[in-house]
């Protein structure tokens, strides 16, 4: 017996068709069978998960108020899990077991979810291919010689391979949506502030946000609902009520206005991606939505703005990794200063060092105004473009990624080429807007293509409604990689 979606699992446990322990065993078996080839997981917490599942099976009185009852969930390894190794894919945090859970993890547990392990990612979420992990690459379940995308590549690959129905990822510039798109699953970047960042290892604090990865829009919405909401431990978590998203999933998008920034998506996008995107727009139109052009004139600057801001914030956030309080420490250093310098050289990988150095430069005396302040001002212009566009439309549609999954090793020598994987996703991060990807096509080689929908601030419900309506009438969310 096998249940693929979170909704099916919750229903099957409540109706007595299965138990949380059986579901947990099933997920652990799928991981055991599938992960040798993919390496999506850095840690599988089988004993903790089975104990938790057994406890849920006996707590029948609680079942009705647990929206994720018995659902196995994987957690990206840059999100803190109490007493469970949390490395963010970095050698500098090798062996670290956080003394606390991230708020999102606590809320998952409170919702009845069963955490089964930690997933691979680019080191400190810096990358678009999961090749920057200190613990080896993850492979795309659709083609093992290709990247799953990144940085949440482990989470996306695990869900795409149907090892489990749900995973948490995190975004700074597209790190949930891009891998979800390349792996053919649903990925959501909530509005900045929708989900507490407490316990998310900080990369760029004005951009970072935890988000769901799932095989269906309904599951992704249920996961977001479980983890969202204000948190006294994160002052940037918005004090905005969280809707019951299931009510938004009506299947009815008549009258919905969808904007397409045609100018920015035609250059540099693969033909097969554009074709799938245009066909997706036709589907939305047939369902009663109207499609119109919108302009996002400053979007061409989004990638450079992003790399100036994100590296600056990273250089500050990653100063804490110094070998004193956790993780890795260089051996035989004569002085404290020597220990810092060598710990950081030996503990960080090349991409993290590049970004710390660039961020240090951007923030250094004499360059701050020309780079950091300037980038913050252009960020305002990018936000205003979206504000203007949303006066005329309810959602903005773009491809999620300009290409399907690329080959492992293809872009590692060229940082800028790697950065361009995020060209359609960073805008939502800079503007703080919610955005998601939903599968919308397949290349002739059977590589998934994703449709991206961006909504107004705090209006995840509208993009869930449109993506769910799209999913109902298209076959892509149900297609899965060969085992």
């Amino acid at each position, binding site marked *: 017996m096998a249940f693929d979606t979170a909704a099916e699992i919750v229903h099957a446990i409540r109706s007595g068709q299965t138990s949380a322990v059986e579901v947990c065993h099933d997920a652990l078996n799928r991981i055991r069978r599938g992960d040798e080839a993919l390496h999506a997981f850095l840690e599988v917490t089988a004993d903790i998960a089975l104990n938790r599942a057994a406890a849920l099976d006996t707590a029948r009185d609680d079942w009705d108020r647990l929206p994720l009852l018995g659902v196995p969930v994987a957690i990206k390894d840059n999100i803190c899990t109490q007493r469970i190794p949390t490395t963010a894919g970095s050698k500098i945090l090798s062996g670290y077991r956080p003394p606390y859970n991230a708020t999102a993890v606590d809320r998952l547990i409170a919702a009845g979810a069963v955490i089964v392990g930690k997933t691979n990612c680019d080191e400190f979420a810096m990358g678009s291919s999961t090749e920057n992990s200190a613990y080896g690459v993850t492979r795309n379940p659709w083609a093992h010689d290709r990247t799953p995308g990144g940085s949440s590549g482990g989470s996306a690959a695990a869900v795409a391979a149907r090892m489990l129905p749900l995973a948490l990822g995190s975004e700074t510039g597209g790190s949930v949506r891009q891998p979800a798109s390349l792996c053919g699953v649903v990925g959501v970047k909530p509005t*900045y502030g929708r989900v507490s960042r407490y316990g998310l290892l900080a990369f760029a604090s004005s951009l970072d946000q935890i988000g769901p990865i799932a095989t269906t829009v309904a599951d992704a919405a249920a996961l977001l609902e479980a983890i969202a909401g204000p948190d006294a431990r994160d002052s940037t978590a*918005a004090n905005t009520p969280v809707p019951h998203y299931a009510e938004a999933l009506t299947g009815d998008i008549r009258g919905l206005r969808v904007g397409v920034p045609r100018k920015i998506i035609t250059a540099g996008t693969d033909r097969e991606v554009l074709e799938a995107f245009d066909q997706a727009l036709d589907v939305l139109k047939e369902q009663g939505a109207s499609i119109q052009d919108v302009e996002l004139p400053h979007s061409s600057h989004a990638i450079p703005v992003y*790399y100036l801001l994100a590296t600056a914030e990273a250089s500050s956030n990653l100063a804490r990794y*110094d070998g004193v309080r956790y993780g890795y420490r260089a051996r035989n250093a004569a002085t404290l200063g020597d220990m810092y310098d060598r710990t950081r*050289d030996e503990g960080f990988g*090349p991409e993290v*060092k590049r970004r710390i150095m660039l961020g240090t*430069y951007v923030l250094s005396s004499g360059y701050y105004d*020309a*780079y950091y302040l300037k980038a913050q001002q252009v960020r305002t212009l990018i936000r205003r473009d979206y504000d203007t566009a949303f006066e005329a439309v309810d959602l903005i549609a773009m491809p999620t990624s300009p290409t399907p999954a690329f080959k492992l090793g293809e872009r590692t020598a060229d940082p800028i080429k790697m950065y361009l994987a995020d060209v359609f996703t960073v805008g939502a991060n800079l503007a703080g807007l919610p955005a998601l990807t939903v599968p919308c096509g397949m290349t002739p080689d059977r590589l998934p293509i994703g449709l991206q929908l961006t909504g107004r601030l705090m209006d995840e419900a509208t993009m869930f409604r449109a993506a769910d309506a799209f999913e109902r009438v298209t076959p892509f969310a149900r297609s899965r990689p060969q085992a």
Partner: protein
Amino acid sequence: MPADFSSDDLLRLARLARIELTEAERVLFGPQLARILEYARTVQQIDTAGVPPTSHPLGTSAPMRPDTRLPSLERDEVVAQAPDADTQAGLFKVPRVLG
């Protein structure tokens, strides 16, 4: 602004960032950082006169909460995570500060 990163520029940055770079990393990072910076420099051509900077996408100010005492993390568990810690004494340990 340097059009390229000289070895001295890199060393200065590495000192500020407290990362001891190997010779091989210096050779690799110099041209890469110069190229990334040249690319990022395109934002300087945009007219931003009178445009306020964005540091928080929602533009909200930090909310207040009641100043109540809450339990801290367990000291023993925290110290146990540190390399070379003196867990008996409950202390982090580091090499001597002066060389």
